[in-house]
């Protein structure tokens, strides 16, 4: 047409009217900076407080002080690990929700974290304390997370349709199954393992080493970068498989990529922190309401927001009954359970025929 003529008419005023109704690079950078600032604040506050009161000045000034040892040896790696695990869980939640087109999806709820946990436990017990175990356990966890993801997805797909409630029920059943299998492993290992498995299963971030932090970050980064290359395709996938294909998306390939990337990430997170539920549900949901549904922003925002959320949840877990501490998974489940029910009831009102 005349495309040109047609388009030139009164466009500037109209483009101004679009301001804020779509994602621009500027809006994306602004939000990510705001979230990063929030994360920084949470990291500083969480590192400063804990069950033991420390002197921050001495911690930085005197490398032989107990303050220094507590801050850099125990607290900071733990806070950092919390941030990474939270980042992974929230970003994976956002990607899984795109995959199944359902805001109720999350690694824990779908039974993927449980599968990863079973794999990780078996690997932990078999490898015992061999030196390479901290690199091998995440890989085994990744393999079992992938198997769980594909199994849940395929079983929930009935005649090519993914009904949300079928999906959630399959997740419930898988979780029961993994739980039973883990109990089985737990009952045949010695008492030392049994106790640590139980605590770890509830989701804990106890005393990681910097090496573990580095390994988990490495796997998380790979998975996340892969997901980001497909963020726009995830937007199109919200239209349904067929419509996405008509818009140029290789749907089957996209699905496989999401399976792999999310499984790498969940495997890494679960191998160090056990099962921490609902972070992947709450964080993307709140951010979607605030920032919109575009996955190009939603995924990185969930990554940063999830990190901040987990750091704060872990701070609460460490301090609320100090000097004892709760598993952080208990805190997220206490917030997440009611939130999930609220979402379920809200979503239930809307037909999700896709």
């Amino acid at each position: 047409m005349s495309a040109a003529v047609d388009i030139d008419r009164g466009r500037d005023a109209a483009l101004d009217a679009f301001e804020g109704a779509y994602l621009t690079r500027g809006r994306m950078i602004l939000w990510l900076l705001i979230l990063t600032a929030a994360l920084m604040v949470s990291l500083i506050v969480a590192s400063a407080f804990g069950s033991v009161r420390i002197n921050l000045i001495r911690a930085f000034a005197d490398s032989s002080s107990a303050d220094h040892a507590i801050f850099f040896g125990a607290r900071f790696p733990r806070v950092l690990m919390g941030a990474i695990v939270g980042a992974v869980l929230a970003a994976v939640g956002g990607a899984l929700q795109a995959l199944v087109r359902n805001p109720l999806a999350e690694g824990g709820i779908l039974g993927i974290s449980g599968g990863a946990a079973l794999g990780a436990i078996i690997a932990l017990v078999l490898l015992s304390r061999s030196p390479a175990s901290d690199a091998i356990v995440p890989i085994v966890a990744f393999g079992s997370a992938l198997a769980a993801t594909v199994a849940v997805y395929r079983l929930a797909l009935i005649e090519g349709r993914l009904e949300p409630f079928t999906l959630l029920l399959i997740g419930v059943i898988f979780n029961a199954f993994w739980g039973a299998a883990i109990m089985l492993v737990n009952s045949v290992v010695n008492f030392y393992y049994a106790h640590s498995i139980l605590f770890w299963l509830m989701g804990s971030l106890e005393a990681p080493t910097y090496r573990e932090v580095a390994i988990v970050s490495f796997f998380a980064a790979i998975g996340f970068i892969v997901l980001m290359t497909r963020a726009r395709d995830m937007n199109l996938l919200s239209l349904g498989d067929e419509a996405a294909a008509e818009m140029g998306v290789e749907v089957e390939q996209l699905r496989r990529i999401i399976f792999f990337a999310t499984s790498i990430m969940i495997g890494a997170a679960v191998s160090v922190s056990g099962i921490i539920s609902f972070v992947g549900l709450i964080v993307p949901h709140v951010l979607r309401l605030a920032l919109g549904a575009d996955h190009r922003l939603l995924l990185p925002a969930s990554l940063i927001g999830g990190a901040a959320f987990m750091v704060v949840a872990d701070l609460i877990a460490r301090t609320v009954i100090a000097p004892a501490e709760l598993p952080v998974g208990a805190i997220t489940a206490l917030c997440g359970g009611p939130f999930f029910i609220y979402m379920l009831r809200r979503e239930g009102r809307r037909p999700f025929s896709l």
Partner: protein
Amino acid sequence: MSDATEHGTVLHASDLVAGYGEVEALRGVSMELRAGEMLAIVGPNGAGKSTLLKVIGGTLARTRGTVELFGRPLDSYDRRALARLVATVAQENNIAFQFSVLEVVLMGRAPHLGAFHFETPHDLKIAHSALEHFDLLALARRPIQELSGGERKRVFLARALAQDAKLALLDEPTAFLDMKHVADIFSRFRDLCIRRGMAVIATLHDLNAAALYADRVLLMKDGVAIACGSPESVLTAENLRNVYDTEVYVGRNPASGALIILPAAPRA
């Protein structure tokens, strides 16, 4: 561009057979379409109209037959290349998350953009024009899930327009729409046919709309083409009685001379 495009052949399909599992919904249909042409596919429920669109759009595999688009075999296109040439609007349009109307229309630009590219002012202008043409500018910022069925349909038509394709496949584009918007949509697509040489295939239940707006009509029943040609030659009382298995009156609008088709079965 190949020779075929220069000569204006958009689509050449022959002897298409396709179905779902055991059920053959399409049993040997052949058709051709030229640039600038608007073809209406009509026929009773289950005639294979939507199946034909899906096979042409490449989302349903055929079990027999050939499809050539713009002079090249359909299978030689990758998905993105195909999405730049063919825009499809399905019968039902759902979306999982709260995207704004503008965001959905901008999705039409995706086949033209790289994975990390943001929409340019050019893309926004195209989206603006698409929204304007379907009377949606006032709704641009609204979450799509808050819209009525008819409004939502128009959003998806606008998205197809923003895709800037050369062939549009529209499955029941006028379902849920009021008379004004039916007329607007057809005049919009006719305009695109004439001015941009776009080709349109639309499945329609509304025979009067087919008669009024289509250059050619393909009448289908039970997965085969019964007749294909000008509306006057295809939409005859005899053809329609045979295909729909009910009495039909075909007359002329005294004001415009256009075909009028009415059900004429006696009242029990």
